[in-house]
């Protein structure tokens, strides 16, 4: 009897699997949409559109999938994974995974004059300098955004994108 109870318990414990990985897809779509509302300087529109990741996140796989079929304007999407801060190059977007949020300041410093949009995941990170941060608010996916943080990277952002998100000033 005890065995059965134990088995049942284990059954209950492990039966609750993730039924929908759709959020990662939505995040990818969010990020892709951001590129429509942000203008990079002329010099950065010639090469491939480089999206780089700091830290591991399921978004990398999703983004690679998207890159196969989509472009940003005329630019092909190129995905990079940085092993350390010193690898940071000329990426258009750097995405910091949630478990590497503590490296935000280092990433900001390393990308200072490179017109790089810095995207994080988690509340309060835009206040710390991130350009846009994907957050979960009241059980829904949305984003925090700061016009001044984006302008500080010499990028132009449309008022529409600002309006749709939670503006942090």
């Amino acid at each position, binding site marked *: 009897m005890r065995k059965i109870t134990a088995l049942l318990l284990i059954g209950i414990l492990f039966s609750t699997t*993730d039924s929908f990985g759709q959020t990662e897809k939505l995040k990818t779509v969010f990020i892709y949409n951001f590129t429509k509302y942000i203008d990079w300087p002329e010099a950065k529109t010639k090469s491939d559109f480089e999206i780089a990741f700091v830290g591991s996140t399921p978004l990398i796989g999703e983004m690679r999938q998207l890159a196969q079929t989509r472009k940003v304007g005329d630019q092909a999407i190129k995905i990079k994974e940085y092993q350390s801060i010193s690898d940071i190059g000329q990426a258009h977007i750097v995405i910091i995974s949630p478990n590497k949020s*503590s490296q935000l300041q280092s990433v900001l410093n390393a990308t200072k004059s490179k017109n790089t949009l810095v995207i994080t995941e988690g509340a309060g990170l835009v206040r710390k300098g991130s350009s846009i941060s994907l957050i979960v608010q009241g*059980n829904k996916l949305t984003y925090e955004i700061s016009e001044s943080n984006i302008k500080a990277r010499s990028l132009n952002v449309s008022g529409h994108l600002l309006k749709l998100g939670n503006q942090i000033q």
Partner: protein
Amino acid sequence: MNFQQKIFYSLIFIVLVFSFNEVSAQQKDVNKLTRKDILAMDYDHLLEMPFEDVLKLAEKMGVSMDELYELLLNKDVTAASKKAESSFEAPLSTTVLTGEQILASGARNIEEAFRLVPGMIVREKTTGNFDIHIRGNDNIPSNNLFVYSENSMTLVMIDGRQVYNYVNGGTFWETLPVDIIDIDRIEIVRGAASALYGANAATGVINIITKRPENSKLEVNGNVQGGSLNTKIANLSTGQAINDKLSYRVSGNYQYMDRTTDKLLALDPLDSLFRNSTVPGLYDAYSGILNPEELYKVEDLFSLPDPSLPWLKYVNPKDGDGSAKYQRPEMARDRYGVNGFLFYDYSDDINTRVSLGSQYSEVISSTYGDQVTPLSTRYSQTSYIDLYTKIYGLSLQANYNFGWQDIVVGDDGFKLDLDVFNAQAEYDFEFGGLNLRPGIYYQQASQNDKPHLDEIGNGYLNAKRTINAVSGSFRADYSINDFRFIGALRAEKYNVNDDVYLPFQFTASYNLDNAHFFRANYARANRSPFAVDSYSNYDWDRTARSFPNSIKFVGSENLDLAVLDNFEIGYRMKPTKNIQIDIEAFYSIARDFGYLSPDSVVGNFAAVQSTQFNFTDPNSGSVVKIERPVPAAGIPEFVQMAYQNIEVESHQLGVTANVSWVANENLVITAYGTYQQTTLKNYYPLTTNEIIGQMTQDAGARLQTNGDNALGVTETSFFEGAGYDAYPSVLAYSANRPDVTKDEVDHEATPSFYGGASLDWKGLQDKLGVFVSTYFFTEQVMRTQYGTDRTSPKGIVNTKVSYKIYKDNAVFVNARNVLDNSSKELGWMDETSGVYMAGLQFNF
């Protein structure tokens, strides 16, 4: 059309119909899409949609379970390494309680919320007033004042501002100006952390982090509840972000709770002394006047009939009927606080915060004094102003905390003015994976009892006394691949101790694939000196009370400070995405405890026969002939109690496990427990009064053998009428503390098994919330000067059920100790009872 053609066209028709349906589904108003539709959508669909619609979809779909797990299992934490990180990767034993979690749990105040934290021992002393320890080490040294059971080994901070009591160590929890409504989160680090946070972070650190307004529209939040035991609790807060740079928040809180009785236990700390008295019949005459099992009404206790010996009094005659000491004996806690926070963000790299606040509190809780009842009244009125500024990597914090406290209301000498000033600067350097953080700190803590004394000499300090500390620290944090190493060292120099203290910390951690995390930690932490330990200078005149007639308390500026060495290994794992298991094993050694204990006793000896002998007066040098008594009876006349180090060492070995399970988006279950063994080496088994009794006997024995410890003939009439009139009484001293065998004992005051569990469920589209929690501990035995008191194992269950009637406005019922388990939770403290409340939570 033949049959085949019919089939062909029918198929085309069917395909067309389905295709059309498919197209219309895509073009359907997003508002009409079901969650299932959204979950089925692929990139092509999603990327074709306007961003506004994608946002709507996100709202409809809600958060994924993955995200929910991360949110619930791995809250961000800063306290563990002074760097923001996910709690899964925190290098020390760490727990984060969020403000929402505390509110949902129904905890009446911040102290009660610690019952949700693994590794914390939380026992209710009187209603709403808790004894709070991290892993215990309480009641050391034993057999002495009740105050040595208070926790002076955990550093408590609000937004990095220390709220520690530098009078005699520990935290007066009721004096925290903030309440649950102010809390963004509480970070708890178990284990020594002095190298990062300074003195007193020996068994751990608690940092209470307050909320900041994020919304540009004015927000008002409140929470009011009331119920049995006259409980009234109100929290109110308002704030807004005025513009992109400036924001503010203002809050207020109030708590009132009655005790479960308006009576007091009466325990004469001198009982053991009487028991060992050499005066025939004294113990018999004395015993039985106070019944340790009985609860007395204040007026009855203070008007107890005189015992058979007319010079004996149980309570201080100056206390009259006791009403000054216990103005409201039914009250447990009555407090309010107000706080204001102003944030100015010049830019992301330059920002500042000013917080200020004030609180007034009255409690009846465990006594800090030496008296007949284990409970006394405490009043405190304190205020603070705290400034925090961050300029790029540099963080600066300075605060001033001031006010007064009457630690034992109605007793002379316990009322003090407090002034505590702290200033610190830390700088963050980043070089790739290396983070360096040097810091400098200054602290000045003053206590002044002079303004509150009728007469200089009646106070503990009789002066303004200051303890200051200058410290410097350096921390290096290096990450390479999935390894992380942290080394921290701090040097602290106090004005009252010649030594420089060097707390340190070394940790190493390894994050294997984000599902298994290993860590090891070795650290040393120390306590700071306190005003009474260092500077006590108190003459306690006990005339007209039971002997001794006078006790002098003296501090020592050169006590060794208590030190705790802590070794830990930890393992966190996620067997599945929705379960996190956290196991920590720890071994600690605490030593160099200090306490107040007799170092010399002057006895008063009566004789039944005598021989003459020469006595040299130590002051005048003249030689007088006095009767040398052959003591038949002796009592202690004068005792000097000195702060001194004691050899006892506490060795603690234990393991804490915590399992959090996010069963689904509406249900989170957590269970935790700590099993530990605390052993005291060099345990000194005598109570203060047994020491006094034995030293008096020693003085008598030496007087009898050679009389070289005689101090003179006394005029005292103590032995008059007791059959000793024929011979004079002689005073003689002893400075020989009894050298009893030091034992290794199981320290039973710290429970060996304790923990809890909670279930947080939401239903009816988040409208209904149910939070059930339980907390338990095993048997404990506390040893103080009152004797020995056993606390039975206990478990309690708490439940809060809330229902949102409109948006985030909810009504709720909240029951603490719902099964009304009345057994006491700590030696000699009040029995507890269930508290049943109803309330309202509003946000607009």
